[in-house]
């Protein structure tokens, strides 16, 4: 199907089904139930899931395949965001031209940064990309204020009159796709459940499915194989008649374009942007997502992105009162003790959980949580089928 292997086609289908059904799947609890706060099926958050999924898929094309660890990818996200908002301020409220320009500008910027940074590898490459991103952030924050809006950033204001939009004087423009507004939603109520189908989310979801499909193609292409060769042995590559530099640059630019697309979509969903989007911690976040999920795997980065955004938005809201209600069934003293033990890891402390999880993954599961899942599955399978399978395991498959 679509020029994919059976296994990959299955994966794509799975991702498609999951993203399309997400508004339902992420809202498993009735609205009135105590568990409703764990529902993640509201448009804002779902949009973030897929947008950061795109960002991480792109980052993984660079890091997962070539092993070049960029600590400055948020810069491309920021550039994409600024490009889109300007298109929407000046030309049209239709998001497509804006997103197109986001990709173009991110690509141009990535060519520049990549051309210079890729002259070095290893930690120097990381520091160079970090330096470039921090420079962009500092400039966006200060000197480039006429373009970036400085500290306050840019929003669509009542005074903005895009060329191709017929706005009433004073009307604030809203992002749309050929007249279909991003903020439009239809709410489906079924019994105690409530599902929100949001236009913006489905636009993002389409973009992510497409981005995911492209990533599969790249992974399975000769180009993708060359990128893995870069990671494996550059010396051999050079003596095999291949120039590694343009390959890495191409990977860098492609992943920059993915970041640009993500940045553009962010603005399309929420028409504002500020320089903090380019700060190096934002670059660090995508590193966390990719590695947590599984660098070099297809679906890992998407899972990682989803997990971190879920923690950031849902786990972070658990406060001590909620914990107390959960553990109310325990005797008082024990209840307090349990709550005191859990509390540092949830709510405002979710970063701590994230950090610990991340460390555990780097230490024990270099293949990310996906590898963890594989190991558990293998362990179960071995238990079921007995010893025959262990013999098979010894010959490495792939």
């Amino acid at each position, binding site marked *: 199907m679509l020029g994919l292997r059976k296994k990959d086609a299955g994966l794509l289908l799975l991702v498609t089904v999951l993203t399309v059904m997400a508004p339902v799947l992420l809202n498993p609890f009735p609205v009135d139930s105590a568990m409703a706060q764990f529902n993640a099926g509201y448009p804002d958050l779902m949009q973030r899931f897929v947008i950061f999924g795109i960002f991480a898929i792109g980052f993984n094309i660079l890091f997962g395949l070539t092993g070049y660890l960029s600590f400055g990818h948020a810069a491309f996200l920021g550039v994409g965001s600024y490009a889109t908002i300007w298109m929407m301020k000046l030309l049209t409220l239709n998001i497509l031209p804006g997103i197109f320009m986001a990709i173009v500008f991110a690509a141009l910027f990535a060519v520049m940064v990549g051309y210079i940074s890729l002259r070095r590898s290893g*930690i*120097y490459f990381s520091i160079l990309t*970090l330096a470039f991103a921090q420079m962009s952030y*500092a400039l966006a924050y200060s*000197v480039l204020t006429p373009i970036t809006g400085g500290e306050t950033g840019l929003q669509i204001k009542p005074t903005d009159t895009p060329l191709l939009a017929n706005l009433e004087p004073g009307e604030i423009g809203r992002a749309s796709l050929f007249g279909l507004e991003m903020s439009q939603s239809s709410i489906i109520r079924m019994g105690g459940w409530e599902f929100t189908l949001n236009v913006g989310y489905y636009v993002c979801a389409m973009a992510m499915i497409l981005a995911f499909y492209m990533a599969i193609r790249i992974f399975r292409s000769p180009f993708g194989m060359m990128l893995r060769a870069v990671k494996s042995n550059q010396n051999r590559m050079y003596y095999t008649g291949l120039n590694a530099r343009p390959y890495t640059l191409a990977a860098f630019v492609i992943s920059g374009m993915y970041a640009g697309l993500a940045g553009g979509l962010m603005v399309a969903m929420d028409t504002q942007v500020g320089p903090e989007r380019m700060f190096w911690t934002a670059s660090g976040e995508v590193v966390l997502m990719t590695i947590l999920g599984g660098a070099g795997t297809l679906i890992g980065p998407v899972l990682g992105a989803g997990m971190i955004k879920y923690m950031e938005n849902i786990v972070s809201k658990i406060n001590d009162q909620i914990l107390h209600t959960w553990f109310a069934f325990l005797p008082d003293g024990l209840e307090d003790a349990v709550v005191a033990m859990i509390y540092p890891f949830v709510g405002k402390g979710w970063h701590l959980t994230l950090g610990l999880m991340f*460390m555990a993954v780097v230490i024990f599961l270099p293949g990310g949580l996906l590898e963890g899942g594989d190991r558990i599955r293998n362990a179960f399978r071995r238990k079921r089928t007995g010893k025959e399978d262990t013999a098979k395991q010894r010959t490495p498959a792939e």
Partner: protein
Amino acid sequence: MDQVIVQILNGLDKGSAYALIALGLTLIFGTLGVVNFAHGALFMIGAFCAVTLQRILTLSSVTEDPTRTDFLGNPMKIETPYVESWFGEAIGAGIIDWSVPLAIFFAIPIMMLVGYLMEHGLIRHFYKRPHADQILVTFGLAIVLQEIVKYFYGANPIQTPAPDAFTGSFDFGVLLGFDPLTIMYPYWRLVYFAFAALVIGAVFAFLQFTTFGMVVRAGMADRETVGLLGIDIDKRFTLMFALAACVAGVAGVMYAPIVAPNYHMGMDFLVLSFVVVVVGGMGSLPGAVFAGFLLGILESFASMPFMVDAIPGINQIIIYLVAIIILLTRPRGLMGRKGVMEE
């Protein structure tokens, strides 16, 4: 001329902090071959040692004074720090006033312990892993450490004043024959610079004149050979890590009065310290110190009004710009050894 001196002075204290952190970073890299992204967190922990000691010293007993009432009409509560009740009011207040410098002695054992635990529990297992893995795991550790600090101390900066004797500014200009009040320099920053110079001097002397230092230097040059000579280099490297943690820690302690400690100060300094290390040359101790002061001073020069007028934003990006230029033209850094991480 006076402007130039002002800028050099302004660059010194920041440069001192950069140099101290970078010194530890490059010490760890040179000896253990580990890229430690958690080094900024050690600086931050040091700063919070100062905060902690201050809190311990100001622990108070509460007594009620029935003769006076507060604004709600209740009897006035009077807090008397235990230190004051034990040592008498004058000495007690003095001790509290000097809590930041005293915190150095408090911080050294703590940092030693933290460094030891970090090396033994985590870093040791990453000697043979690729640099990318080291960066990632220490990055994760940095997040964990700063979240722990945030949990106990909250997210807001905590003012930690310097001793009264060092508040206020020193009129440097008069000393050099300029008009009074042209070159003012806060006393504490002067103290910080002197302290940094002392620590740097001590580290160099330690490496230069002790047998331990000699072995470590030899290990930096060629780890395997030193190992073959029958010297247990690993044990010394653990100590080296603890020492580097100490340097970062005391740098943090003394920096607390300059910038009120907050949980993410380590990350803020880390990025710049890495740039400093790279500019100075990975694994080069003099390079780290030199580049630290150089970049600190360059940064304050770039913030001079006429510089900012000439090239807008130069003050924001100068350090990164220098780093990029150095990395592209001289990858081993200003004082790096040839062949070290030049790839």
